[in-house]
Structures are given as C-alpha cells and as structure tokens.
C-alpha cells in the first residue's frame, strides 16, 4: 500500500539525532522519502521540490522503539487488550515495532494463529507487530510446538512467557531446535517450585506485609540453568526481564565468557522497589516482582555496563475488574507501552545513569538485533521507522489519557518527563501527540 504520505517527502529539521548503530549523535536533518530514510543532512540542492518540513528543535530524533514482549490480548483476552488498541498505545509510547507474546487463548502455537495476529495487525495499520510463537504445544511445557511452521508463518522468536520454560529437557531441545532457524528462545527465568503462590519479592517489606514470598534465588537458579544450557547447545537465548543482582552477575560473567545470550529488564525493576507495595496497590503486582533497593541498584549497574541489553515494556494489560481485587487474587502485570520511554527518560537519562545513545540502543537497536528484524537504526535506504521525542515534556500518568485497553499502570498519579511527539512507520506519520505548544 503506497499512500500519499509515502510519496511526499518529509524533512525533519533541527532534531538531535541519535543512532547507536552509526554512531550518530548530532543536531541535523533527515529526509524521509518513498517510505525510507532517503538522506541524512542533505544539501538544499538535493531536496525534492515538494516537501513537508518539520521543525523538531529541542527534540530527539531516533529510530523507532522496538519492544521485545507486549501482550496484545488477541485472540481470547480482548477484555485486557486488543491488537488495535495495543498498537495505538505502542505508537503513543514511541514504538514502531512490538513483539507480541504467545500467551493468548488459544496460545499462538500454530501457523494459523501467527497469521491471525499478523493479519489483524496489518488491518489495524498502526505499528509493526512481530509474533513470538510458543515454545511448546498449547504452551503446556511438554512437547515442542511446530517451530518450523511457525517460523514459516512469520514468528520471530519462541517463548512460553510469561511463565518460565520449566522443563529443563524441553528448554534444551528448544535451544537446539530453534538454532536450525537462527531464531532465539525467550525464557522468563524462574524456578516455579520456589516462586509458586508468591506475590512479592521475599525481603523485609514482604516480612512485614505477610504477603507470600517470591525469593530472588527463584530467578538466580533459573538464570544459571539457562546459561548452562546455552553453553552446551550453542543456542540463542534471551532472558526476558531479569530483576535480581544474582541474574545480573551471572549474565555479566556469561558475557565475559563470550556466550551469545541477551537479557532485558522492565522499567518497574529500575524505577521502583518492593517498598511501594506498602500501598497494597494491585498495579504493583508484577512478574518479575518489584525487588529491594540492592537488586534495583545491581540492575542499574547492569544497564550502565551493558550487561542488560534491552529495556522491555513488560506490557501486560489487565482489565480493571481483574485488578480491582485482593492482592492475592489480582493477576500480575501492568499496561506500560505508554510509559516505558518516559520512565527511561525520568529515571535513567535525567539522573545521568544512561546517555541518549545507550538508551536508544536498549530501547531500539538491541531489540532489533535480538529479534533479528529490521529497524533500530537510521541507515539510508532502510524503512523510515522514526520517533521524535520531546525530552522535557512533563506529564502526570492518568488512566484517562491512556490508549491501551487497560489502564493498570504503576506510575498512575506520578509525574514523568518526556514523550513521543511524532512517530513514522515505514515513512508514514502514524502518530502526533495531542499536545499544544
């Protein structure tokens, strides 16, 4: 589909452009034409005669953000999220691509299911959607799903998330089998027998509140097991959303040994701690759980030194009626596509923990590499997936303003800095923030 917007050229001027893949960090202009990045800092003489100019002074220009795991609810859990609403929320969050998880009902374990999601995403015509297929048939953790057929239908990675791949033999086989297709396995590291029934991080706050514990070692042990299997199989593994100092240490050492394993983290685990749960707010019931300060500090160090490759939204929307329950019964998760960028700006960039290049690397370039998809860079000739970020815009997170079907966000009522102002997907401007100035 070649729309008018794609044939009309757009010149984005005066933005500070960040592209970690090309080492770009400078104020300049970029020309988008025929859906692609046509030129960086073109001379006036080389510009097309018909041209839309956008003044992006004070804004950051970057490759569109790419998410490594968002729940889109379809099929079967439309009360939580829909592909149309989720992809709209993604655009508002600065994402041009999201990978959707397989924990739908029924789960995405057949080629038909992959096709369904891709079709719906295409019809919604917002951001790109990459499909993560199930590792196991029916996501039951017993037999391998038909991974070859799923790859054929377009699945880019395999995971039984949000749960772990508990069966060690299955994970071993999955790593071996997926390597035939050069596709990664995503595992949520957690030893179920240690974490089962748990509500929050085991620690002093949990001791006081009397909530059932999720000990840190439940994650550490699984991370350790997973890395050992990568060593023997040579498979590609991505650990979705680590949260403990133990995991960070294990990952750091694995990388020093040259293991090709990556990991991600969600904003909750570098912004908040378990102390927040003193409010008993079910929006803070998350998986992995909010950890104590020492774990949070270790994760921040891991982000700084590159041990943690990617920042994932962890978007797991839950319908209000499900969250309006006792903490024991409320489901895990938060709707976070719309706040991930702002939380990175507020909690990592403004305090000087990460610079813009590191942040865009973790929000865009690294996720593209991990998924093995296009994007994450501003290379000339590549599809123009671009976000313009206003780093100084102050806003308070409110359910009313959210586009996701579910509004369960742990930053509700919190003031954040920064937002996506405009988003182009394949050279088409798909989003303009409803902000006057």
């Amino acid at each position, binding site marked *: 589909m070649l729309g008018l917007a794609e044939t009309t050229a757009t010149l984005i001027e005066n933005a500070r452009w960040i592209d970690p893949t090309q080492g770009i960090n400078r104020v300049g202009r970029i020309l988008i034409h025929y859906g692609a990045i046509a030129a960086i800092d073109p001379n006036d003489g080389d510009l097309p005669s018909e041209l839309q100019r956008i003044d992006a002074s004070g804004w950051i220009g970057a490759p569109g953000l790419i998410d490594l795991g968002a729940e889109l609810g379809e099929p079967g859990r439309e009360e939580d999220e829909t592909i149309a609403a989720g992809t709209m929320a993604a655009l508002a969050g600065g994402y041009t691509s999201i990978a959707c998880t397989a924990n739908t009902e029924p789960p995405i374990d057949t080629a038909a299911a992959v096709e369904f999601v891709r079709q719906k995403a295409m019809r919604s015509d917002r951001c790109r959607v990459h499909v993560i297929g199930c590792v196991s048939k029916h996501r039951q953790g017993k037999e391998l799903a038909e991974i070859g057929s799923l790859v054929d239908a377009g699945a880019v990675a395999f995971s039984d998330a949000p749960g772990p791949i508990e069966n060690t033999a299955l994970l071993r086989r999955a790593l071996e089998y997926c390597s035939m297709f050069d596709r990664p396995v995503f595992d949520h590291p957690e030893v179920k027998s240690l974490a089962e029934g748990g509500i929050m991080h085991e620690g002093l706050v949990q001791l006081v509140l009397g909530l059932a514990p999720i000990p840190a070692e439940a994650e550490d042990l699984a991370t350790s097991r997973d890395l050992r299997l990568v060593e023997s199989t040579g498979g590609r593994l991505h650990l979705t959303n680590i949260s403990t100092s133990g995991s960070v240490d294990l990952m750091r050492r694995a990388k020093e040994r040259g293991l090709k394993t990556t990991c991600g983290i969600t904003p909750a685990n570098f912004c908040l701690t378990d102390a927040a749960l003193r409010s008993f707010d079910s929006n803070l019931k998350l998986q992995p759980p909010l950890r104590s300060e020492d774990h949070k500090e270790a994760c921040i160090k891991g982000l700084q030194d590159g041990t943690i490759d990617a920042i994932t939204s962890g978007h797991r929307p839950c319908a209000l009626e499900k969250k309006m329950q006792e903490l*024991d019964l409320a489901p895990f998760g938060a709707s976070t596509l719309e706040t991930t960028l702002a939380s990175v700006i507020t909690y990592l960039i403004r305090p000087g923990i990460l610079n813009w290049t590191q942040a865009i690397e973790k929000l865009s370039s690294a996720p593209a590499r991990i998924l093995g998809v296009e994007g994450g860079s501003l290379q000339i000739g590549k599809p123009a997936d671009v976000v313009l970020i206003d780093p100084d815009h102050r806003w308070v997170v409110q359910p009313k303003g959210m586009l996701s079907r579910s509004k369960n966000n742990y930053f509700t009522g919190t003031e954040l800095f920064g937002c996506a102002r405009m988003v182009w997907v394949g050279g088409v401007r798909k989003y303009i923030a409803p902000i006057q100035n």
Partner: protein
Amino acid sequence: MTVAHAELPDFPATWRHRHLLDLESLTAEEITTLLDWSEHMAVATDFGRRKIPVLQGKTIANVFFENSTRTRNSFSLAARRLGADTVEFASSGSSVSKGETFIDTAKTIEAMGVHAVVVRHSAPGTAFLLAGHLNCSVLNAGDGPHEHPTQGLLDILTIRQCRGKIEGLTVALVGDIAHSRTARSNIWGLKKLGAHVIVCGPATLVSRQWEKFGVEVSHNLDEILPRCDVLNLLRIQFERQSTRPFPSVHEYALLYAMTAERMRRSKPDILIMAPGPINRGVEVTPEVADGPHSVILKQVTNGIFVRMAALRLLLGVSEVNGSCLA
C-alpha cells in the same frame, strides 16, 4: 455531638484515626490511648454486666470473608454493648466466585447505611484497600498473615493488667510467625511500648530477618524459656501453609509445645497466652492451657473491651469530622 456517658472520660483530643488497620503505623501514645480506653470500657460496663449506649443509632457491619467464630462474635458483642446495631455478612469463599469483587461487596454493605465495617479476609492489605474505597470507618479484623490489630491490643492489654507495665518485659511469640497476623500486631505493639520481643519457632516459619527490626530470633524454646516473662503460643496455621514447613505435628510438639515439664523450667510468674483457637497437644498441653499461669480466657474477655474502645474512638472521629452519612 454525642453526650459522653457519665462514666466514660471525654473523647481524647489527640485521637484522629477513622480506621484501625494495623499497629505498625500507630504511635506508642495512640496504642496506650486504646489500651486505656479498653480499661474505661470494662469499668463503664461494670465488666460486661451492662450496656452503655454511646453508639446508639450507629450500625456496624461485620464483613467476614474468612471463617471466624470468636472474633466475629466478639465484635458483635462489643458493638451491641455500645448500643449499636450490627449487620453480619459472612462468606467463606471469595466473593469473586459469585462474580462480585470484594470491594463491590463492601460498597454494597456500606450503602445500606453502616458507619463502620469490620473486615476479615485471607489476603493481606484487604482492609487498606477498603479504607481507600469506602467512606465509613474500616476496622481490620485480620488480613491474611499481615495484621490483626485488636488481637495485638487485647494481648498487650492482658499483659499490662497482669504485670502493670509492658516496658522491660521479655515476651516470646512462639510458633508460626510467618503466617501469623497476631505475631505481627504483637511485635509492633510490644516494641513500641518498650518490651523485648522474641520470635521463636522452626526456621522454616521464623525468619532471621526479624532481627533487622530489633526482634530477637530463636529456634530453640528451651534456650529462651528461662528469660521469658510471657509466652504467646501461636496457632499453627495449617490452612495457610502450601507445603508443610515441618516434618510432623508430633515433632513440632516435641520442640515447641508448652508442657508441664517446660513450665518447671520457666520463671515462676510466667504468663501463658494463646490467641486461639488452640490446638491442644500441639502448641500447648491441656494442663498448661488450663493451669494457673494461663490467661487465655482473660484474653477473650479483654477482646470485647478492646473492640468497644476501638469502635468508640474510630466512630468518635467520624462524628467530629461530620459523619460519612449525611
């Protein structure tokens, strides 16, 4: 404004809580006020022999999402001795199984015109959530393993009556600390009033982390026994344990049951308490439970006075600030 009953003192000017959700967040002064008012309630009712109608026209709802006989009856009696009407709502299962969230259930009951909701639930934080959603007073009658403030108060009141003070006493809470709301309320209340608190029980149920809160941790009852002024023998919460944290009840009793033999190695004036219901032969043998050092039934009696005091103080604030119900 209500007219204070002749035998009750003036409403304490410093009291400003509409809810009683925990003891952790109360000050020593506030806890002392609650204890003092419990004593006033005992005197004013002639130790339970007559009513004082200071809450006449008020309605108290007992909303119990978890089985309870003694606490619910204790709250009911407390409300009625103050002249209030009571509404009883009991649901053993989760309200969600009927397609209604517990918040909706509580809101429905509030809409019937109640002034206070007494809530018990198996999930920690439930009373806090209700306090955020309801306009009336909320009284926590036990939220999972988190807190049970009136139980903590009645235990502390009983100790204070028997010993005349709390400060300087050594109080051991024995048993399933991990799953005990009574333990948590006792820990905060006793610590604030200056007691030395020991938590004692199997390592799988008593975390070493309690030391970070200035609580002594022991796994050996015989070692701490000679130092204890009070033993509070907590019930093993079989229903809250997903996997059994010790090999057998027999072994538990061997290590932690208060027996006549252990009594001989205790201080001569030791107090034996239990929040009940007691598992005879598990935490305590019958001869100790029924022996001269046991104040288990005194605890039950005090429970009513503590709950009267709590209801009076919480609803007193609602009155001063303008009632929630127009």
